[in-house]
């Protein structure tokens, strides 16, 4: 679940009739620290899987996809081997489709290889309630029978609603539920930065 989708919905609806605005609270990651975090995760993936032979990367749309691409490049530097990369759209597996006013747009899932017996590393930007990851696991299992599924996230902000944890974390960011974690990546947002935004009444 990416940070930037939420403010839009919030600003439209507001809460209790009051107009809500978002105030910048802190920057927790910049270009350099993001790069360091991803490099470290790449090394951890190699170590944990004793190489990358049966590892495949699956980026969750939207911001998990470019992050997975970067991990693929770093892994290629370490192991000199291009590991397969797929992109997953989890819209059709969401558990809140019948509760949302704004219908999410469906995008294409592009996993051009068989997942059976692979060690799948799912990549996303923010781990929050865990519901996106639950949806992603359901989607993956419809595509094949992986040997195992691991989870890599850039930010873990806590507040899990499901028994899910990440195997690789770029940074733990303790946050309150009323805050928003906004991840920006160059490929989509023209900058590499992670901010915490606070909801305030206007």
């Amino acid at each position: 679940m990416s940070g930037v989708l939420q403010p839009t919905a919030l600003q439209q609806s507001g809460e209790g009739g009051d107009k809500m605005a978002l105030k910048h609270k802190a920057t927790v990651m910049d270009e350099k620290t993001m790069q360091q975090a991803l490099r470290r995760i790449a090394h951890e993936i190699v170590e944990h899987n004793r190489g990358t032979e049966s590892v495949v990367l699956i980026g969750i749309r939207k911001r998990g996809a470019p992050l997975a691409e970067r991990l693929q490049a770093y892994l290629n530097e370490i192991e000199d081997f291009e590991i397969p990369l797929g992109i997953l759209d989890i819209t059709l597996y969401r558990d809140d489709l019948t509760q949302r006013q704004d219908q999410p747009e469906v995008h294409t899932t592009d996993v051009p290889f068989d997942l059976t017996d692979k060690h799948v590393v799912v990549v996303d930007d923010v781990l929050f309630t865990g519901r996106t990851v639950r949806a992603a696991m359901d989607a993956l299992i419809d595509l094949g029978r992986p040997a195992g599924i691991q989870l890599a996230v850039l930010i873990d902000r806590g507040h899990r609603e499901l028994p899910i944890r990440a195997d690789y974390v770029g940074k733990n960011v303790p946050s309150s539920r009323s805050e928003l974690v906004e991840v920006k990546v160059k490929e989509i947002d023209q900058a590499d930065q992670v901010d915490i935004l606070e909801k305030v009444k206007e």
Partner: protein
Amino acid sequence: MQTLRRKDILGLEEISAEEINLILETARSMREIMQRKIKKVPTLRGRSVLNLFYEPSTRTKASFELAQKYMSADSVSVAGTSSSLVKGETLKDTVRNVEIMGIECVIMRHPVSGSSHYLAKNVEASVINAGDGMHEHPTQGLLDMFTIWEKKGRLEKLKIAIVGDIRHSRVARSNLWGLQKMGAEVVVVGPPTLMPPDLAVFGVKHFVDIEEAVENADVVMALRLQKERQESGLFPSMREYAELYGVTAQRITRAKDDLLIMHPGPINRGIEISSELADSPQSVVLEQAASGVAIRMALLYLLLGGIKE
């Protein structure tokens, strides 16, 4: 635009280019699901759909039913001849009764033009028109556009010749509305007696000579000669019709080299299209059938996938 803000899909006359774009984009994502080993997503779990077919159908009905299954919706299908229609129950009563059983979407094919509009006004469920008389067949129009869009990468500025019995064809009407909204140039070909009296509202050029009409065309769409809807005297005989208006390899030499041949099916081989052409590499008749499932999955998602306002 993210959402299709409407309850029903009744015709392409009232749908905007923006909405058509959203439907085509969504269908492209659905197409990927059809290529998986496990062709099923849980999206419409617990949603119920009724397929109500008062006219025979193979492709459309199978395609809607598969789309419902792939999206995990529950569905029941009722055929006209086995339903209470033959006992004199009105359409409104039939659907109100199944609606109370929990149906949220009705797919209907009916011999009377305008019947799906009537139904949509009288029930809360979403209505998708699967062909109403000689009026429209919007899902066919959309799947035809999707097939062309996937093959050519665009619809804008393409030249499309629709050949045959335009007068009785709901497929032609839906395509005429839809394709022109998407910026394609459409021409129609056929005997003047098989042109609709209101052809002028579409603003398309009518040709009687196929060879002239297909000059530089990107797509030739042959229509089925609807034997069941012919009043006598519109054309002398099937044989004569085939000789003058049948789409054959010799008649389309002036079209572009990468011409696509389309037909909504079922084909009367040797009448509106030669058998050889229907099976040629240029023919996308089978792709059209596959596109149909993707388009219908997309529509089910867009109509049933969120909260109704």
